[in-house]
């Protein structure tokens, strides 16, 4: 890209997008100026011996495990038999709305408007892509990634209600995996932060990358 004058770029994401963003930084450390994440990709968690964990880290991870028990059923089915679930969701608008809407309801802090939610549903509906989207869970389960330390400057936009309402993962824990240069806690917003709090995320992105140029 250097021949075009665009030798370097930034990246940001959440959920699977956080995974893509992280791998981008690992694979292209000289090209990626910095990465900005608003959630951790759950398959890219630090590998830590439990004896090394602080009490705060331990309690947050325990809260996470509680969430896994009560909320992660979708991931179990999508990472094993996504095709089976797909038939019903691809055939029924109400079924699709129930399945996708439940996640938006549970994981967001500032629930988007019905208009936005229905636009997202319509996109899945007209492109018939709910089944193929769920295959991400299957592929990531059977072809896992080994996380390694990300030395690229990293910003975390911490949106309090990130799936696990009991507590955000502590900075010390995420510093085991990322070179964290910026850590900003926001009063509202959740898993879908870019859609829930676009001004907050845009401001955080602008401030972070301005400092890295």
């Amino acid at each position, binding site marked *: 890209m250097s021949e075009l004058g665009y030798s370097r770029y930034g990246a940001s994401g959440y*959920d699977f997008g956080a995974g893509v963003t992280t791998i981008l930084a690992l694979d292209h450390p000289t090209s990626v100026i910095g990465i900005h994440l608003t959630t951790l990709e759950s398959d890219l968690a630090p590998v830590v011996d439990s004896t090394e964990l602080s009490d705060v880290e331990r309690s947050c991870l325990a809260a996470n495990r509680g969430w896994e028990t009560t909320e992660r059923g979708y991931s179990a089915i999508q990472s094993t038999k996504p095709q089976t679930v797909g038939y019903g969701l691809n055939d029924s608008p109400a079924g699709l709305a*129930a399945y996708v809407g439940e996640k938006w*309801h549970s994981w967001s802090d500032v629930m988007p408007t019905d208009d936005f939610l229905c636009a997202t549903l319509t996109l899945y509906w007209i492109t018939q892509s709910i089944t193929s989207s769920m295959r991400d869970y299957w592929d990531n389960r059977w072809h896992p990634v080994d996380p390694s330390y990300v030395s690229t400057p990293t910003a975390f936009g911490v949106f309090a209600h990130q799936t696990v309402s009991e507590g955000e993962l502590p900075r010390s824990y995420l510093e085991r995996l990322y070179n964290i240069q910026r850590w900003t806690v926001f009063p509202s917003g959740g898993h879908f932060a*870019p859609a829930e709090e*676009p001004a907050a995320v845009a401001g955080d992105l602008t401030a972070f990358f301005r400092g890295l140029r």
Partner: protein
Amino acid sequence: MRYSLTCGNGCAIQDWPDQIPGIGWEQGTELDWLRRLVSYWAYEFDWRGWERRLNAFNHFTWEGIHFVYQRATSGKGVPLILTHGWPSSFLDYVDMLPMLEPFDVVVPSLPGYGFSPRPAKVGITTDTSRSTGTGSCLSSDIPAMVRAVMTLGPG
């Protein structure tokens, strides 16, 4: 691709399951919430309005990956790639795009989401280049995609 919702009449005769009174969301999506949302989707939601709104952005595909591209107001900004998650889409970023004037923004659709088809094979992970190497993965595609987009003209 189906262009109409085909939801209208279907929703009117939808067979709704029962729900334990007062249980809220504990066993999953709450019945009254869903009925209201689906009714809105079928009878009030304006997808044509969204089409007009989305058509105001610059859409491209690169090697099958759909993305929206917005050039910095100055004509050349730091490239910034914004990647969504599940169950979501590039639409997460449409409200934010006008707030990102300093950047040359690239908003891809993950393979298998919305306008990016998913290659019909297994092993499409966030990191195919590191695992099985069997498929096209977004993170390994992004550098070339950015390179391609930067050759586009202004606007």
